[in-house]
């Protein structure tokens, strides 16, 4: 298969599109930044791509709620196209604001089936950080299970978060359990040594390790197929060694932890 093509979806207020495209390019993909208006005019262009990425930023200012307006545009105009995209075995990635968009658009988690109505309740959302404000800080992450294509082979990562509305909250305890049992809660905040201790992390690690108060330390979730991933941390901000906050102390490797996510996505089509 030739180089996979990546559509980086851009909307008013998207602001991580350039570096996210660069990360996909570094991983061997061919990335194009495309404005949402072009996709709405001609949804068929999606079929030219193997990977769809909704990058970080403040789509439509995050006015009303983070990601809400772009999510509504997708839900009302592109739901079928994205459904097809997913059914075709392609990949969808939402980073930070992209995660907020995917979860609110119903692309990532299926609506609760026992509430059949025109407007079914989503099983979970991303809401205001417990700190009540935007924060930029680096977090330790661990991968749970092997369901997500993007996280294949990754155990631990050190990445920055930068958001105000990243607290993962499920509709209720039952939903949370269902998602966990389906192995969809794939990325968790942890402390520096979590893996070594073998801690199952069923309790929330304290702030600021868990930077926003997410239930079960959830930093990222995938859909039922494992081919759609949303995460709050920014992998595109850690692909170069000098992005690591301790690089002057000799920490980090020849490339950043985040690069593997993009390499995995590209490798999936090779």
């Amino acid at each position, binding site marked *: 298969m030739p180089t996979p093509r990546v559509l980086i979806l851009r909307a*008013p*207020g*998207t*602001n*991580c599109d*350039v*570096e996210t495209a*660069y*990360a996909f390019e570094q991983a061997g993909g061919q990335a194009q930044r495309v*404005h949402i*208006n*072009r996709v709405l005019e001609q949804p068929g262009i999606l079929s030219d791509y193997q990977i769809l990425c909704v990058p*970080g*930023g*403040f789509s*439509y*200012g*995050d*006015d*009303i*709620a983070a990601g*809400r*307006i772009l999510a*509504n*545009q997708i839900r*009302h105009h592109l739901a079928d196209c994205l459904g097809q995209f997913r059914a075709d075995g392609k990949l969808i990635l939402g980073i930070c604001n992209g995660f907020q968009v995917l979860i*609110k658009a119903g692309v990532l988690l299926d609506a609760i089936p026992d509430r059949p109505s*025109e*407007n079914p*309740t*989503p099983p*979970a*959302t991303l*809401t*205001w950080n417990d*700190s*009540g*404000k*935007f*924060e*930029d*800080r*680096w977090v330790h992450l661990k991968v749970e299970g092997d369901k997500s294509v993007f996280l294949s082979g990754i155990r631990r990562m050190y990445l*920055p978060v*930068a958001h105000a509305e990243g607290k993962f*909250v*499920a*509709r209720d305890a039952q939903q949370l359990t269902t998602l966990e049992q389906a192995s969809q809660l794939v990325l968790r905040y942890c402390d520096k040594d979590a893996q070594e201790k073998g801690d199952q992390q069923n309790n929330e690690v304290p702030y600021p390790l868990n930077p926003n108060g997410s239930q079960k330390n959830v930093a990222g979730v995938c859909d039922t197929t494992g081919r759609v991933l949303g995460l709050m941390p*920014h992998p*595109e*901000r850690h*692909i*170069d060694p*000098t*992005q690591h*906050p*301790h690089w*002057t*102390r*000799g920490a980090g490797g020849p490339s950043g932890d985040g690069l593997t996510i993009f390499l995995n996505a590209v490798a999936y089509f090779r």
Partner: protein
Amino acid sequence: MLWEIDIHAREGIPDRVAAAIVTEANDLGITNLKVSTAHGYLIQGRIERAQVDRLANELLADQVVQRTVVAPVGDAVLNQAPPHGSCLVHVLPKPGVMDPVAQSALAALADLDLPVDEVRTFHKFWLSPLPADQLQVITGKILANDAIEQVIVGPLDFDHLEIGAPYRLELQHVAIRQLDDAALMRLSREGQLYLQLAEMQTIQAFYNQLGREPTDVELETLAQTWSEHCSHKTLAGRIDYRGAIGPQGESGQRQFDNMLKETIFAATTEIRARLADQDWCVSVFEDNAGIVRFDNENNVVFKVETHNHPSALEPYGGANTGIGGVIRDPLGTGLGAKPVCNTDVFCFAPPETPADQLPPGVLHPRRVLKGVVAGVRDYGNRMGIPTVNGAIYFDRRYLGNPLVYCGNVGILPRDKSHKQPLPDDWIVVIGGRTGRDGIHGATFSSAELTDQSETLSGGAVQIGNAITEKMVVDIVLAARDQGLYNAITDCGAGGLSSAVGEMGERIGAEVQLDQVPTKYDGLSYTEIWISEAQERMVLAVPAGRWDALAALCASENVEATVIGKFSPTGRLQLKYHDQQVADLPMDFLHDGRPKVVRQATYTPRPPAPLPPPPRQRPDDTLRDILGSLNVASKEWVIRQYDHEVQGGSVMKPLVGIDNDGPSDAAVVRPRLDSRQGLVIACGMNPHYGDLDTYHMAASAIDEAVRNCVAVGADPARIAILDNFCWGDCEQPETLGSLVRAAMACYDLAVGWDTPFISGKDSLNNEFTFEDESGQRHTISIPPSLLISALGQIRDVARCVSMDFKAPGNLLYQVGITKDELGGSHFALVSGLDGGSVPQVDLAQARRSFAAMHRAIDSGLVRACHDLSEGGLAVAAAEMAFAGGYGATIQPAQIPCSTPHLAGRPEVILFSESNSRFLCEVETAKAAAFEDMLTGVACAQVGQVTDRSRLTIGDWIDADTRQLKQAWQRPLSFD
């Protein structure tokens, strides 16, 4: 129909807004308050209940964490009090104030095909019962700011939203030809023109000659163009200076025809001439930002602005539009630079100032600080521009007049660095619509603040809408690369008047004011012309490119409108439909202002010895300095800024093992595919200005440059910016203190070949109020010169950070410690006055900077930190706790100006002598390092240890974890 949708937190989800209000009320002495909050939307349109329910659930509320109450406004169900609350308060933006969420909601509703005419957001609060005076305190000091918001106690009682009434043209003339001097000045003041008598007389003479009265819009245009804010008439004017000259302050005199041109600009001109074909400046002091060379394809640009007066009245909106405004400067430089990073420096009164000691009309400094930080955060983060560098200074004199400096660095292709509007180009405005907001900002910023400012100039306060500006940036960069325009500038202070007036200065311009898109009906032609509504850019577009530009803008929903033409008439002509409303010759507008000679005098404070230091253990003094507001950790602020977006972050503002040590400078890679970096730092020390503004300015430049050098920047490639914030420069002493600082700027720049490339001044930073007995008081800010530095580094992998790296490494002090405790933090925390102000030894500093750069570039330095506020002891403590290690330092080894200083702990530990660094060097590289620093004062003074203790001779023996706590505590507001 007017519907109200209330959105509440679902049961079990905490109401954080309420919790914050309770805390703030406690701070104001109101205890046991109980609060519930909701926010919501007023929706006006011909829509049915079911439709409203649908948009509440689908668009406006998050069903997982929120619940809604929907009803027509006034319905009892909306106003049912929760168990503890009885007093209902609504807060809404005043009509005409930017409401970005409402705008976005309106656009999203259109997408749902709902016939909605207008949306407005609001917040509502239920408070437990409380007396009327306390209710007033809470609404006025916590819930709302009446500069931009209206408070309604009780249920909402209106049934429709005002959207403006149609405007009927009435051409206004202002009778000025017959006025006497007193009447001219009354007109200047009451019309908010803020022109001086000589200027009013010149205008009067001009219209007498013309044989007619000016129209109101002509007068406004002249006032705006001649305002201090836009013309810098004081500093770029004639000044007769008598007083201290040169570093040693001999008395003398100088006459300036244009003070800025003969000091700061002159330095750059000399440096460029000397560099000849090695000149790396591209465009200085002519465009909206200074431009210097970066790599083979790109130049970089830098601009720092202030937004002080709006921030005093409405901190959030003031800072918000401050950062929004400065981003448009690089975007309006050359053919448009891409924003790369932001800087922010603030000056406030101490946040612990007792609330009952505030003069009337002053917001509490803690509220100002939080509002300003939130304003920068919300705009900068939304723009996707990392905020990478800044500082905060505290002094009581900033109480009524805080300072907010906002800076932006951009990158620009070399062949897009110059603009040239051509005759017959169309005048195109793109971006935000014009509204009644921001009227009189340019002239207002030139007036002093008083306790009445809010009522007088409320219109000068605005809220920004970052997303509109982000859309404009995206489109401008695309249009630039397609070559769709000949020139671009920002609409800043003075609005279209300033932007079109400047762009058309050498051509002429004809503007059809009725064509300008407005936010609502009812704006007069004058309001349209002078409105400073945000997020607008003005372009000069060749007729043949208009279709392509219009299509590009439409493709991303950016509004673009042709409003006129740069007609080669040499005149500024404004029309509203068929009526001509202004006709002014460009040369009178730009060159007609009379030159006034201002007197300036300056005598530095006579030297006085520092009284004997208090009998306090140096350990405790160190802890006091670390915990003093200027030195203390700014992490609470920094974390709220996205400092890593765009992916170029190399040196973050917080560094070290726990990501919380104070970096000297930020380093970013503006191009992801290159290893070349930009270094951003600043220097400022208002306290030195109380002794001698010459040495204050010299020290600020030294600090900015040494901060850059400390992380690895090449001192031969550092460009600097000046931002003067001063008091009333009509006072000869105040103006003199500025002139003296400007002369230092010249000396330092020329001495180091460090060019100034851009600058800005903000004068009249004073606050006047009447106390209870009717007595007038004026608080003038201390002379506040901010120097911002833009350095460069060939390969970012050579950078060093300030945190200790490994036990056993050696410590070197580079530079000489002198008895310079005047204006120091030692003096500040000890309550002492006197001592010598730190000076700069130009030749020695230049050698030190060059040698340090060679050593860092050769990989010989593991950590480096500049010695600034608090001197050696503070620098060593910060390096230790940032690295998670300790240090042992032998005071006897410290390089001193005279040997006897070695016996004076306060000097060795806390003196703030300039041009010094503390460096960590591996033992194996010590000899090479020492070689590299030959000819520079440098001595091995100690060693990094693996114990968390800082030991300096017998004087200091402290646990670094406790020092860190002392440093972190004061400004953590959570």
